[in-house]
């Protein structure tokens, strides 16, 4: 059995509250031991001196676009981008074409992922058939087939009664419901945050209340039903407050945010920069502050990319016509490092927890920790590694990043998936 030894890295595992210089030995696809000064008995030794070794990162909110929009991304290209971003597990959203609202869809994703995926892929099924918010999807069957959660992400279930039934039904199968919170009536026609910038630019705004109202409603419904809900891509101060209060009351709610919501504001839209167009929209400095506080006090459990690739032709257009969404798999980690760790919003361990242990716990994945006998998914981070984000940086099929032009620091340099070194020194390693 092939052995890989990772020497002298600073091992951080929030699950064990570990933060010390340790060696890790991998045998086959499992971690066989991790302790100080393991003997050099492996065929492959990785010198991790000065580097950080963490459980493989989990991005629980990704759009891989397959099936249907293979021109934008495929399971192969999306998982390659994940690999370069130090991410060893992705959860892919159901809003493909056709959407994942039945067992054959789930099986398609799992088969594709098995054959072409470079990281672990966990499918998410839809809450309602065809994401229409009318009839419930076969959550039981899909759960058996392998989904880890249900979500109608990209759309909203406007009918509160249907949402109530959906929560009850998901609870039956112990599935968390990931909720895209948007009151579609309030947000109708909107293309950016409603406020000073939208007024000056003459663009139709999406009021923050479109998010807040739905977060409040679904927390109430979670209380009513006892279901587990997870609020996707939190962007407002009020949402953070609502989740915080709900958690205090013991309601089963968790939530996530994305790097752009703790880094950028509506001002970044500037002169109609369509790479700044996403849902929910970029908000204000006050919201950034609240989101950072929510991350620090544990209100916000996870950080996700909401990786949403779009082609140039979908973005090089009038702002109104441009597609919503940004890529993020490859910039998730460096933005956490630069904006949260370096700026002391979170300790390194707390930050890593939000992309490892926390999503694994919410989705009940046997991932996100370093444990003897468990699958060896590991990410080695060079906190000093600097790279400029430009079009040539990306391995995704699309480059619609709001961070183009920035120099970021703190990248994954080596990614190990199921005991295989799949990316080493920022170079892709083929099978």
């Amino acid at each position: 059995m092939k052995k890989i030894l990772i020497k002298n890295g600073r091992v951080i595992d929030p699950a064990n509250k570990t933060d010390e210089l340790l060696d890790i030995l991998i045998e086959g696809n499992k971690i066989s031991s991790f302790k100080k000064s393991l003997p050099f008995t492996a065929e492959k030794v990785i010198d991790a001196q000065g580097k950080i070794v963490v459980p493989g990162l989990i991005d629980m909110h990704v759009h891989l676009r397959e099936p249907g929009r293979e021109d934008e991304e495929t399971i192969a290209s999306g998982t390659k981008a994940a690999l370069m971003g130090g991410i060893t597990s992705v959860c892919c959203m159901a809003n493909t074409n056709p959407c994942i609202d039945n067992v054959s869809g789930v099986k398609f994703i799992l088969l594709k992922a098995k054959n072409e995926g470079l990281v672990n892929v966990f499918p998410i099924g839809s809450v309602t058939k065809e994401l229409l918010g009318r009839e419930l999807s076969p959550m039981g069957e899909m759960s058996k087939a392998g989904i880890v959660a249900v979500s109608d992400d990209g759309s909203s279930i406007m009918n509160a009664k249907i949402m109530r039934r959906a929560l009850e039904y998901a609870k039956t199968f112990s599935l968390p419901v990931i909720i895209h919170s948007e009151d579609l009536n309030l947000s109708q026609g909107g293309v950016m945050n409603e406020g000073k910038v939208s007024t000056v630019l003459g663009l139709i705004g999406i009021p923050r209340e479109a998010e807040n109202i739905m977060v409040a409603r679904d927390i109430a419904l979670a209380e009513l039903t006892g279901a587990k809900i997870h609020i996707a891509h939190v962007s407002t101060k009020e949402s953070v407050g609502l989740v915080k209060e709900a958690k205090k009351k013991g309601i089963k709610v968790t939530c996530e945010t994305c790097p752009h919501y703790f880094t950028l504001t509506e001002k970044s839209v500037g002169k109609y920069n369509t790479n700044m167009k996403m849902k929910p929209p970029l908000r204000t400095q006050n919201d950034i502050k609240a989101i950072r506080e929510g991350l620090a006090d544990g209100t916000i459990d996870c950080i996700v990319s909401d990786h949403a690739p779009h082609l140039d032709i979908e973005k090089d257009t009038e702002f109104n016509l441009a597609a919503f969404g940004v890529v993020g798999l490859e910039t998730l980690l460096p933005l956490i490092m630069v904006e949260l760790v370096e700026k002391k919003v979170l300790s390194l361990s707390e930050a890593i927890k939000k992309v490892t242990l926390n999503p694994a716990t919410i989705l009940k994945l046997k991932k996100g920790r370093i444990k003897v006998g468990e699958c060896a998914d590991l990410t080695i981070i060079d906190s000093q590694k600097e790279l400029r984000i430009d079009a040539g940086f990306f391995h995704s099929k699309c480059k619609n990043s709001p961070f183009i032009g920035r120099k970021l620091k703190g990248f994954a340099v080596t990614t190990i998936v199921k005991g295989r070194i799949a990316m080493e020194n920022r170079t892709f390693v083929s099978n």
Partner: protein
Amino acid sequence: MKLKNKDLLGLENLDKKEVQLILDTAGPFKDLFTRSIKKVPALRGRTVVLLFYEPSTRTKNSFELAAKRLSADTLNVSVSTSSVVKGESLIDTVKTIEAMKADFVIIRHGMAGAAEIVSREIKSSVINAGDGAHEHPTQGLLDLFTIREKKGKIKGLKVTIIGDVLHSRVARSNIWGLKKMGAEVRVCAPATLIPKEIESMGVEVFYDLNKSLKDVDVIYTLRIQLERQKGQLLSSLREYTEFYGITKERLKYAKEDCLVMHPGPMNRGVEISGEVADGNRSVILEQVTNGIAIRMAVLYLLAGNK
């Protein structure tokens, strides 16, 4: 003294000196209109393309006449809005126009930011002739010119803009221009037609028309799109007229010598009564004349900015 950019996309990013230069240059151009030969050879051989994605007879005619009075050649390209979504992309369309070696592209588009996108893609000078609810800079300039001509100054004047500010590029360009030149600006409309945080542009918001007109030097009334009442923004046009229509009785709240302005085309009897539109305070037709002079000045000044 020259303009800083090759394009005129809005008044927000012009500085006061540039606004003044355009207004000062428009004066001699207006004088040309009194001659029997109203044409000068200044832009002989230049090509001006009028790219209109929205029907607008007035603005197009005004630009076309301005270009022709400067001896430039004009080409009209009309694209129906329906083809925007399905057909050739905006960028492809303007690149085709650039390949025809146009010196100027004058663009009117229903979506905010369209002129900005075009200006980034091509070397020709781009003049924004109205982009969605964003800006309509030559309208703003011609309004400033008209006010300055009639009042002798802009600084210190009180101006109330009445109507659909939410959807109005004319309102935005006027607010930027008037604030830049030192006027005090108020906006007045039902709250459904006032965009959020408009106060950040330096204006005061009123819902009561009579109060908003107190001591003003200029009443600027915007066209109300007749289809707005279906969009849940108004209950009925009748009610709008009752509360926000400019009538002779309402004028008494403003200064005795106040100007009444409208960017046209007017809905007589809706936002403005016929009596006021044709009355001695109205400068609506002069706005039209001045529009040509302003557009000539802009074309002339940008021609030197390659």
